[in-house]
């Protein structure tokens, strides 16, 4: 009985949302007194799943590490992994070499700042059901729409589908609200009713609901903004294409749906429409 009570208590604690001080520097702004700090950046986004056949999906963003953060991570990695045995994942258990692995090939706990986060429903500024609007206070910098994650009751989640085959990035400047527009998600199994995802879906039942299709409808002058935010400085996000990248920590890979004037694909390669160049 005691163990059962502890189990229930642990479920309750896990279910408590933690929007600040989780190492990301991300703070959800809720309705009430709103202050736009000159030293912080803000992103406004909507997640619209009214036409989606998926359970709630959370967009995942990556902030490009600063040089100091990258150096700190490298130093921590080198300190933790020098002479360490290989990471104990299922494949490496079968390794026969007793030699120390090179730097970058061991698992270690990094206690520094985190730069990848999901936008969870608990962060909602307003909305209900399948449509929510979010206003997040974040660290100024360059961000990438990194992938998507299925929401869980506990709030804990993992990256489910990365945008590894092509996505977009944007700069979040301090002192203003950067409007990211509307994020749309659907299953890839059947052709989506969402116009932006129609050509990126319909792959057949063998994919099931495991791969998440994602699209962004950038903000335009007609996009709805909550009245409490109307008086604050707000600019539409200036998106740029981001080329492919490898993310071994996800089971599924996909690409962000094309965005006219920003992101396009040719023979699977990412095309930056701003420059006309093909990205790696």
């Amino acid at each position, binding site marked *: 009985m005691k163990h059962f009570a502890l189990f229930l208590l642990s479920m309750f604690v896990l279910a408590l949302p933690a929007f600040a001080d989780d190492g990301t520097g991300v703070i959800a702004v809720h309705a009430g007194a709103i202050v736009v700090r000159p030293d912080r950046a803000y992103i406004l986004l909507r997640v619209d799943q009214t036409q989606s056949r998926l359970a709630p999906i959370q967009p995942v963003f990556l902030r490009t590490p600063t040089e100091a953060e990258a150096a700190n991570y490298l130093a921590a*990695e080198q300190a933790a992994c020098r002479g360490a045995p290989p990471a104990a994942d299922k494949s490496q258990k079968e390794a026969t070499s007793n030699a120390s692995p090179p730097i970058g090939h061991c698992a270690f706990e990094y206690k520094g700042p985190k730069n990848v986060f999901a936008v969870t429903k608990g962060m909602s500024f307003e909305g209900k059901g399948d449509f929510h609007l979010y206003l997040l206070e974040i660290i100024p910098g360059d961000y990438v729409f990194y992938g998507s994650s299925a929401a869980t009751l506990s709030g804990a989640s993992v990256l489910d589908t990365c945008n590894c085959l092509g996505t977009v990035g944007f700069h979040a400047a301090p002192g203003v609200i950067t409007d990211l527009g509307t994020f749309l998600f659907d299953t890839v199994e059947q052709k989506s009713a969402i116009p932006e995802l129609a050509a990126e879906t319909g792959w057949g039942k063998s994919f099931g609901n495991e791969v998440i299709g994602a699209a962004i409808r950038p903000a335009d002058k007609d996009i709805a903004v909550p009245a409490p935010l109307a008086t604050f400085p707000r600019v539409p996000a200036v998106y740029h294409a981001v080329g492919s990248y490898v993310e071994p920590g996800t089971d*599924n890979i996909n690409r962000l749906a094309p965005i006219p004037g920003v992101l396009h694909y040719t023979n699977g390669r990412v095309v930056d429409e701003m420059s006309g160049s093909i990205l790696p």
Partner: protein
Amino acid sequence: MTATFTGAPVFTALGLALSLSFGLLSPSMAAAQEALPDVATIDLPAFTAPAPSAETDKVKFFYLAKKGVSFAEAYGDLADCYRFLEEGPALHLPGYVPWIEVPHRKAERSVIPRPFDGMIEDTLEAVFLPMIDAVIARNLDNMKLRRCMATRGYQRFAVTKEIWLQVHKGTVRDALLRQAKLASMAQSGNQGIAP
């Protein structure tokens, strides 16, 4: 479609996956550093592609092909898409990724322990993984490879398990060379399964 196969039928698909996981051989690096052999010297198993049916979407064993693609181009596409098969610990959120946009960020990163994670995974691993691990790994790899290659216009063509094993035997490079040859042999009369 028929072809001739003369190699030894040794199953090393898991070895292929492990080689990729360890980074012992990077296909894209191999493609960049080594010249491709004459396509005529690459042996393939003899087989007849099954006719597509309503069930073929569920096929587990297939090869990817595109009409009009050259052997070299197919090898480059396959090698590039094999990059995404690299496996690692799940990315828990929030987390840290040592992002380097250009060139591609390195794949390795730290692991953040979670309560009970190790206990649950160890238990599941001990009981179930010997039975299902290879199947799951193959399916995940298939989905990643299918998605990546589909964006480049490739379609699936069903084969038997035995043929699939023969195509994927040997080193990563051997398997890629066979797959690239198959990919470049798509005939106008063949029907693939999209994607």
